[in-house]
């Protein structure tokens, strides 16, 4: 009887909650763009170069009230940016989901890390262009690009190039090779070290001879022992103490531009609107000042200019071919083999033990405990499923979830109803406020 009342109470709460939820999501569908906040997916973690850039723009948009709703930065890091880019590729082309991804989108495609490239998106704009710097450690014997490339040609596969495989840095090395092949067979030996700080550490520690850096990274490490050999831009850069690679006889242009992308099929009027907002943001004094500090050119490209620029960059990247790395041990299979071996050992051990002492393990549990455990698991799964479906507001679902699980677990749901209701309310509204307002995380 008690159980029956509990079920009835739970059902009632569920019903009320669902009604509230439906009322919430029934928005009117017409009117102008943007009606709600625009999400910008940054496919790298917070605090990195791309994230910093995105947040500078976001701030300018907020300060000048260029958008009626806030621009939300969502960091979706992983797998060289492809986790985030795939999410935007598959998003609804309604202009509410954008991607900010630099030339890595092209290098990832040409290195085979992603099956798609710029063609899978509608390009919106290119902002803030900056070239890569070819650099060595301060105590390196190579004083110019020519010195270095001479050795690369004479003794191929001996100079260690610290790289982030599949990223623009790696391609800067490949482009240098191909620019030098007129004079002979030039080959670096590429070593995977990853991000800028790690590549710098490899140079300083003597674990590699040369690498490529962004201008911001170069500036950060120059004082502590980095020497530029060449700047891979068209014009020399004021902050880099080296001539362009081109003027040193190597036709290498390798730059990073922050490109904004929309899912394929986004209407051109919405894209134009975003371009307008970006233009105004980039023109603002605060952005200009901050970009100058980061040594990034505050250039904005859109429309046909952007298309030509993209085609040009794609062609340069596609012109060089990536060599397969040396065969590496198949660690996954080796691990699997060891796990199986150890599994057999452990199974053998416990089998022997069981043979000696007969099992008296399973403790009797009262049925209501099993039932509430299963119901809680069910409720949690349902909660996550409904969150994923995005049919209802986060607050509604969380309120219901806390309410329902608390009622399931509680042995006297009626007596505790008020404290449970209060907790549910605090959890749903409070969590929502903390995450969206304080942490600026976009909850489902």
């Amino acid at each position, binding site marked *: 009887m008690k159980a029956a009342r509990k079920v009835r109470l739970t059902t009632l709460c569920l019903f009320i909650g669902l009604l509230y939820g439906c009322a919430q999501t029934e928005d009117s569908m017409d009117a102008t763009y943007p009606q709600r906040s625009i999400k910008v997916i940054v496919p790298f973690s917070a605090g990195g170069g791309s994230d910093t850039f995105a947040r500078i723009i976001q701030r300018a948009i907020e300060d000048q009230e260029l958008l009626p709703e806030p621009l939300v930065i969502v960091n979706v890091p992983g797998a060289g940016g492809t986790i985030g880019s795939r999410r935007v590729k598959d998003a609804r082309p309604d202009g509410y989901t954008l991607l900010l991804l630099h030339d890595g989108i092209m290098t990832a495609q040409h290195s085979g890390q992603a099956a798609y490239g710029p063609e899978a998106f509608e390009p919106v704009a290119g902002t803030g262009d900056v070239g890569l710097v070819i650099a060595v450690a301060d105590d390196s014997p190579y004083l110019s690009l020519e010195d270095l490339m001479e050795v690369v040609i004479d003794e191929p596969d001996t100079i260690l190039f610290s790289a982030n495989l599949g990223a623009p840095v790696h391609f800067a090395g490949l482009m240098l090779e191909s620019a030098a092949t007129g004079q002979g067979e030039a080959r670096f030996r590429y070593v995977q070290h990853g991000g800028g700080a790690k590549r710098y550490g490899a140079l300083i520690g003597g674990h590699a001879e040369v690498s490529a850096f962004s201008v911001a990274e170069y500036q950060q490490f120059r004082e502590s022992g980095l020497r530029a050999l060449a700047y891979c831009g068209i014009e020399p850069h004021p902050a880099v103490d080296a001539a362009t690679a081109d003027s040193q006889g190597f036709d290498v242009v390798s730059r990073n531009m922050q490109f904004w992308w929309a899912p394929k099929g986004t209407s051109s009027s919405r894209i134009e609107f975003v371009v307008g907002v970006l233009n105004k943001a980039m023109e603002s004094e605060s952005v200009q000042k901050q970009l100058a500090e980061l040594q990034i050119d505050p250039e904005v490209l859109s429309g046909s200019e952007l298309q030509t620029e993209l085609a040009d960059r794609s062609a340069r990247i596609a012109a060089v071919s990536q060599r397969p790395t040396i065969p590496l041990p198949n660690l996954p299979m080796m*691990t699997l083999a060891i796990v199986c071996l150890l599994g057999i050992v452990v199974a053998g051990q416990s089998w022997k033990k069981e043979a000696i002492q007969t099992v008296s393990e399973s403790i009797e549990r009262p049925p209501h405990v099993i039932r509430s455990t299963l119901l809680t698991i069910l409720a949690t799964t349902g909660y996550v499923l409904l969150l994923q479906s995005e049919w209802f507001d986060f607050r509604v679902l969380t309120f219901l979830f806390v309410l329902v699980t608390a009622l399931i*677990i509680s042995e006297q749901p009626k007596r505790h109803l008020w404290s449970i209701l209060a907790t549910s309310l605090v959890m749903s509204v409070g969590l929502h406020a903390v995450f969206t307002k304080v942490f600026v995380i976009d909850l489902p």
Partner: protein
Amino acid sequence: MSGLPELISFMLTPTALVLMAVGTSLGILVGAIPGLTGAMLIALSLPLTFAMGGDPALVLLISMYVGSVSGGLITATLLRMPGTPASMMTTLDGYPLAKGGQPGRALGLGIGASLCGGLVSWVILVLLSQPMAVWSTKLGAFDFFSLVMMALVLIASVGGTSLSRGLLSGMLGILVAMPGASPATGEIRWTLGFHTLDDGFKLLPVLIGLFAVSQIVHELLTLHQPATRVDAAQSSLDWRWSDWTRYKINLLRSSLLGTFIGILPGIGANIGSVVAYSAAKNSSKTPEQFGKGSEEGIIASEAANNATVGGALIPLIALGIPGSVIDAILLGALVIHGLQPGPFLFENNPQTVGVIMATMLFANLFMFGFLWLFAKRLAGLASLPRYILLPIILTFCVVGSYALANRMFDVWVMLGFGLVGVLMDRWKIPAAPFVIGFVLGPIAEEHLSAGLMESGGSYLPLITRPFSLVFLLLAFCLLLWSLRSVLSPKEHQP
């Protein structure tokens, strides 16, 4: 330092004091709640500091760092759930001791050891940041691989009852870390065509699943039994002055180990506390007490995880090379505020170096004060009735997993590993080595691959490089030693 008076007057301004208080307490709170980590708090607070100057921003962020490493000990001790990965080892002894009727003692030991670890690592930060950071860059890829191998062997001695189960758990952890992009080449493997798996399983959802969710299921299944939570309200915090002298060797060793491990890039607070814990266990007179409420175990774990904070700051300020996830975010913060970390930071911005070091000191004192005053009230989380507590924790697990990378996939991973945790619990496979293997596997692979790319495929440098050879020999000795200590008690049995 030239501007010491200026530095002191800056640190004592109301702004700096408020920032430290807010940062430390938020850090402790986030650290105490399973599923929320310091890295998350600091990454998400970074945009809020854009409006501040560089120095106040660093004061806030470093206070959060110190607080978040410390806060985990509360829930680890009273709920057997590590609030952060770094306090995982504290659960092994903190919870049994608290459950055995001494929650105040367990918390007091943890808090006292945290302060000691923080202070010792601060001294080393001030004294050795430059020379030690220069040395650590000399370690090549093969040296790192050997170092990680040594740490992996340590798993065996942490495993608890059975060496084979510990090893199995560690290797399972490595196996689970395998799907996704290869850390060496970026090549995608073992994803069965699911693109959401391209980046593999993330540490946070795996950890929440293994520790928090399986604990919730455990609680649910024992609803009819008296609570397994520990009520600390009745017992007062217990850290005596005599403890400083009584445990001075353990405190010093654990703090130094933690600091040293913190300096090495990529190996953070979790590993620091594991190493210190096993070192304490191996040199203890009562090793059988470890895992059953050993005071030495709590001290080793908590002193070491706090000490890694100071250690990891050394390569960050001296070379601009981050030693952990949080340090990578701090590096971003420095650059955003126009400061260039590296040896020249000492010359160009002595004030900033001073602020970083002073904050580290003050934040540790704040942390100690806050924990001393509020640990039991924070532990009030634990004395809530289960019908309130469990839904709240479940919600945090879901939201925390989601917030990591803004995707529901991680939530499913978290639930999946909850199931794995329940099964492992049933088959008596320890969970700690699993997590350590999970973290170290990719690091080992990354360095081995980089080494092989350097050498053109030759494994020879593993034994020709002096550092690498030393680490491998140490690993070998450790393995022999733990094999011996596993085999010897059997001889005494009839």
